[in-house]
């Protein structure tokens, strides 16, 4: 039943994808060759293969998440292809790697709850990945997020995000009783025993250390946000978000005062115009591009994204700023559709969490859904000047191998959770 529905959902996705690539080809036929059409076909083929795998390995999994993800990825590859065909080839390889990891998890980790036994190991690996980046990573745009391994640049933070979500799901699941027992009150907020606040303080310390050492407000905010959301789900207490919010705000204010990069980001957010050709250039150009899009956009391939030299006008266009390119070429209509897709994705994710019948699954699904919601909000909000800009990827859409692979891993977990819940219901 679920798989038939998934196949039906794939039909419009496949059509949109093929039309999209054909449009890019038509608009830029002078610059690119007809291989864009084969991209479309390859793409449709890949997701059909994944669908067949699901029929065998996880027949009861949620039927909406894969089509949504396929459409997001298609939008991403289409935009990347339009910006730089060579980059799209690389992204396609990453997509295949992501789908391979996805398949491996679906096949070999069907009983994902075994992960609960290894949470400390996973948590330590997650933290180590970050630590290695801090020590040996290279600095890009002032933030230390990248690692060079062989010829590849990877962002360990993306994997770390998923590992730490798994760790938190297991940890909070075992400690939720203690954390939700009130022993005293602080300004009217019910508080657990001080010793159980340890992890919260540790997590805050870790986020803040991330901020200071990696110079990256985005990653720090993302980790802490995931932690707060999951603690809230585990305990049902506003105490954690409130105290966490206060702690994080305090840390952010302190960072603003002592860290030049954070200070710059905030200043530019407040007024990018005074430094339109300096530090504010990227954001100002992003706003110009988005404004240019209007209601229906300039049309795929017809926007003004590249200098005549082929360089992108907005630096980091295929990665952090891909949303600006989409908003320009597909307009308010397309950009809103994209946000609705993410909302649907998160909705399915939270729904899976609600439906799940054990604490670990609930927490894991909620954590993954919350991490997608937060990451999407932080990067889109940044490029449209709703909040200060922080460089993280737009899940499934931005160019970036680590992001694609890690996110497909997380998606596989969500689908496995729903498969288990639904199978239980059917069986």
């Amino acid at each position: 039943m679920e798989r038939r529905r998934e196949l039906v959902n794939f039909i419009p996705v496949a059509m949109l994808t093929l039309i999209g690539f054909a449009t890019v080809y038509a608009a830029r036929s002078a610059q690119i060759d007809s291989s864009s059409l084969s991209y479309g076909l390859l793409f449709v083929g890949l997701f059909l293969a994944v669908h067949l795998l699901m029929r065998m390995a996880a027949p009861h999994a949620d039927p909406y998440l894969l089509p949504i993800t396929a459409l997001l990825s298609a939008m991403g590859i289409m935009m990347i292809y339009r910006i730089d065909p060579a980059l799209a080839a690389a992204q396609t390889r990453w997509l295949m790697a992501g789908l391979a990891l996805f398949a491996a998890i679906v096949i070999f980790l069907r009983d994902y709850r075994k992960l609960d036994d290894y949470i400390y190991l996973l948590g330590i690996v997650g933290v180590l990945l970050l630590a290695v980046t801090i020590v040996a990573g290279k600095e890009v745009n002032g933030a230390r997020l990248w690692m060079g391994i062989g010829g590849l640049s990877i962002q360990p933070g993306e994997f770390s995000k998923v590992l730490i979500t798994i760790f938190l799901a297991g940890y909070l699941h075992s400690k939720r009783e203690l954390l939700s027992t009130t022993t005293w009150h602080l300004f009217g907020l019910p508080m657990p025993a001080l010793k159980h606040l340890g992890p919260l303080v540790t997590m805050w310390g870790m986020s803040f250390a991330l901020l200071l050492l990696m110079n990256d407000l985005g990653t720090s905010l993302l980790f802490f946000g995931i932690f707060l959301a999951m603690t809230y789900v585990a305990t049902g207490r506003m105490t954690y978000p409130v105290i966490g919010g206060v702690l994080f705000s305090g840390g952010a204010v302190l960072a603003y005062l002592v860290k030049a990069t954070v200070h710059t980001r905030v200043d530019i957010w407040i007024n990018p115009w005074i430094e339109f050709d300096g530090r504010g250039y990227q954001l100002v150009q992003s706003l110009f591009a988005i404004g240019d899009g209007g209601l229906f956009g300039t049309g795929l391939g017809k926007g003004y994204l590249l200098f005549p030299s082929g360089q992108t006008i907005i630096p980091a266009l295929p990665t952090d700023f891909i949303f600006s390119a989409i908003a320009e070429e597909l307009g308010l209509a397309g950009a809103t559709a994209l946000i609705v897709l993410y909302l649907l994705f998160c909705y399915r994710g939270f729904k899976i969490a609600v439906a799940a019948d054990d604490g670990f699954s609930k927490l894991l699904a909620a954590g993954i859904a919350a991490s997608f919601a937060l990451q999407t909000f932080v990067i889109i909000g940044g490029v449209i000047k709703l909040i200060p800009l922080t460089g993280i990827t737009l899940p499934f859409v931005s160019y970036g191998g680590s992001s694609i692979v890690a996110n497909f891993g997380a998606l596989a977990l969500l689908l496995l959770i729903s498969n288990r819940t639904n199978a239980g219901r059917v069986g």
Partner: protein
Amino acid sequence: MNSSIRKLFYVTVALFAGLMGMLVYLQMVDAKDLADNPHNTRKVYEQMRIQRGLILASDKTVLAQNQKQDNLYYRTYPQGDFAAQLIGYSDPTYGQTGLEHSMNDYLTGTADEVELTNFVDTLLGREQRGADVKLTIDPKVQSTAAAELDKLGKRGSVVVLDVHTGAVLAMVSSPTFDLNNFQANWQQLNSDPDAPLLNRATQGLYTPGSSFKLITTAAALESGQFTPDSKFRDDKGSIEINGNVIHNWTDVPFGEHNFAEAFSESINTTFAQVGEQLGQSKLEEYQQKFGLYQKPPLELPPDEIAASGRYVNGQLASPGDSMDPVQVAWMAIGQENVQVTPLQMAMIAQAIGNGGKEMKPYAVDSVMDYNGTVIKQASPEMWKQPIRADTAATMTQMMIKVVNEGTGLGAKTAKVQIAGKTGTAEVGGNKGPNAWFVGFAPANNPQVAIAVVVEDADERGHDSSPIARDTLLAALGLPPGQ
């Protein structure tokens, strides 16, 4: 846990709604402002694929042309800093200003009048070209005025108008900058306290001082309460109004004199009384009649033109805003926060020289497609009629007296009779005053009108009259000097 998960989803919905709200704002509400932002070079780049039209002076001297590089046309300006603020620039990084900005549709061939030719060209596979824009600027007059200001080494501005048509023959703003390499000096040009990028002629707001007495006099004569022969007496060299003392320029008492003498000697005490008698509304009525409190309709981008008038805390006041009698008296002698642009003052001179008819100023004479076919030709148009012809004639006589025996002696020349009015406006601080000369020539058959302002001028304010004289002579095709 389920209720917490649901709440988490509601938070997600709220956050995403925020994203959509901001997008609606950017793409629907703010889109036009973003597109018009001078730093938005997206359109400029796109248009660099089109061979942009030339900008020419009135004698077809090329002021702006193109240089092709990597299939893009870059702008070069053969005359360098000539009329730089008026012409403006068109640069992929720094955007567009001046006529390069406001005439962009013609220069790129996207204006309706040029569109058809371009469409045909596209069909025939010819390269698209913009239309050429010919200005009314006369290089001889422009260069003379610029050189005179340079010689003095002071900041200031000169505007010269054709009395009959309102055509701008010269528009100088000093210091200026070189349109060919401003990019390299961008930071310095922007932080320079002398503001070389500012078009002082249209955006520079100056205290008019006694040159404002042209407006007071027009109001006085047309009120019927005063004639050039009206008698006045000044025994003290100062006058007290409501406990406030207004001094003459040198504190010297002028004794018995008539209104024409008060005008030519610029006697503040007399004009303060005249202003007091006329009252605020009369003074403001004539300011509006001459076009103050609105932007002169020149072809420049609106944000490069300032309205003249009374400014309070940096904001243009509205006529009728309450003023006490002392303020009215101060206004009559061109103080009390009245701020004017050189263009506005030149237009006042033009109106008086043109029998009371104030013409629409214009700097673009014609637009031609690349075949040389004129697709747009400026036609002189009256903008306002602030005063009657007989008032203009009377004022001309009074202005002749200023040049021949009054404060404007520095503009006197045997070659032609010049009519004018000077002004020396205190600016405070330890800076010298702004020196004005506003007038036209020849007085008996006016052809060209002028406004000159020199900043930080010598104490007696004599810097501007010789500049006005030599520039007017150049405009009339005569050699400079007395």
